[in-house]
């Protein structure tokens, strides 16, 4: 039988390739394992610095990922999210007039992209990142306006809580229905107003039911100026129900056993 060893590349080529392989897999290792806990603060710093070193390579080739390969950790963030919008002139108090932002059908990549978008907005709502939320909501408002020709008056984001096994075993019909209202917690709501400049003014509705000015919302595409700029008034003030408090949200996280 022919000895395949004779067909190997020359030692110099093998050595060079071996070094390249080591550098490549070191970068891949840092890129994909850099996001795993546990680790002390010092370890995290080291991970971040290493990630920074290899990031030109790992980001450009998409080795660096923050995707949820753990699928779920049964935390609040692992619930599902839903974005709803209210066309201008509709009654905010009437839940039937809110439209669900839907892209694609379950099982398709489009659907997952839309879910991740909702998750990002929900995350901004949870962490009180009003700047990030304003940028995203302004883009959404513009896109929805371009698609339908109707201005959007409000956008809100719900966390869709998960059913405990006790819920499904079921005391009541409501608890057995995963789409029952009790499984939805509003984590973000904003009012939108088109300014004379054409930009969208985004105002988060605060916990007390008051408008919360969005700081720095001029950043990004089309995000509006701060509250009250351009003499904008709030057309739907008084119809808005305050979102639940943070403790209320945390207390209802779907995954706690």
């Amino acid at each position, binding site marked *: 039988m022919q000895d395949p060893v004779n067909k190997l590349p020359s030692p110099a080529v093998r050595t060079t390739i071996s070094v390249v392989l080591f550098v490549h*897999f070191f970068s891949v290792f840092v890129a994909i394992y850099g996001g795993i806990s546990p680790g002390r603060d010092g370890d995290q710093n080291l991970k971040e610095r290493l990630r920074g070193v290899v990031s030109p390579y790992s*980001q450009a080739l998409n080795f660096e990922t923050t995707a949820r390969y753990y699928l779920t950790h049964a935390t609040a963030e692992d619930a599902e999210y839903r974005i709803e919008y209210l066309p201008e002139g509709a009654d905010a108090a009437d839940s039937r007039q809110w439209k669900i932002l839907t892209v694609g059908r379950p099982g398709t990549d489009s659907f997952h992209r839309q879910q991740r978008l909702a998750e990002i907005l929900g995350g901004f709502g949870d962490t009180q990142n009003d700047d990030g939320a304003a940028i995203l909501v302004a*883009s959404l408002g513009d896109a929805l306006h371009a698609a339908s020709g109707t201005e959007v008056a409000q956008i809100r984001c719900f966390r869709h809580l998960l059913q405990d096994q006790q819920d499904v075993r079921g005391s009541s019909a409501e608890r057995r229905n995963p789409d029952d209202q009790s499984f939805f917690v509003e984590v973000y709501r904003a009012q939108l107003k088109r300014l004379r400049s054409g930009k969208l003014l985004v105002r988060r509705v605060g916990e007390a039911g008051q408008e919360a000015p969005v700081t720095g919302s001029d950043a990004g595409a089309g995000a509006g100026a701060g509250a009250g700029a351009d003499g904008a008034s709030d057309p739907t003030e008084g119809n808005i129900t305050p979102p639940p408090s943070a403790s209320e949200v945390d207390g209802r996280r779907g995954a706690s056993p």
Partner: protein
Amino acid sequence: MSQRENVTTVSRTGTVGEGTDSGWDRFWFSPSKPRRLCQLRIAAGTLALWFFLGHTFDLQDWFGPRGMLPTDTVKSLRPDPYRWSILPLFQESGGLWVVHGMAVFSAACMVLGLFSRTTTMLTWLFVLSYVHRAPMLTGTFEPVLTLILGYLWFAPVGNCYSVDRWWRARRGRDPQRSDGGSTVCTLVCRLIQVHTAMLYGLMGLSKLGGVAGSTSYDGSWWRGEAVWWLITRSESRLIDLTMLHAYPLVVNVWTHAIVAFELAFAVLIWNRRVRPLLLTAGCILWPLTGLVTGSLSYALAMLSLNLAFARTDDGAE
């Protein structure tokens, strides 16, 4: 003397360093045939085609000039400096459609094996462009797809099951000549295998260990409950298995089986005897995971990676 016998002899008679050298060389550089890489080309090309076609219906909604995620918004939300994309160069509707059409055409050519290496490389670059256009929208599927495509185009993936091969035969060139083994095929296959094993390790460890920055990990994979929390994601799931509330043991076994499978795959896939068992387990667990999570593309991509570990008719592994 067979290759394995030859190497064993070297290991026994030489020094430890020599044995390691020969093992390393055999692992990375001994020639192998491109057949399974060609099979992987068809699988990955089909997934890429599915990925692009999935964008067709909402291309403008996401990436259009008045879409939900304009380039400026993406830069503000995710300022990754090294993520590049050609899509922002074609912001206008017409240009975007042209690029999209080229991406679909490239993936279709890859599946058929037409100018295989070139179209595989182009497909990879197009997928990266879509991914980097809005990285916050990508999930578990896209990194797996770019992993396969990124390595695959180095290999002669048009040597089997391809229009290229048919065309060569038609023009009187001997297609058998291109069936010979090459070091590049081994290198590419090993790169995919090692990267896949690392990915499996990540999956298993991140389930058990939590994620950096998260303080709310509650150990559901340790307790055997995690699959239940996947089942109850009512908007994403493709099948409703909530009746399993009456069978908690099934949920527990399923949860632990996923973790055990992933951790075992990372380590034991290199063992010839265990490998068929792991590949079979993957064929059962991945479709189930896909149906429960709704991530069919991800499940199919992971199943495709099994091809990189399959034994070929020339005995290569």
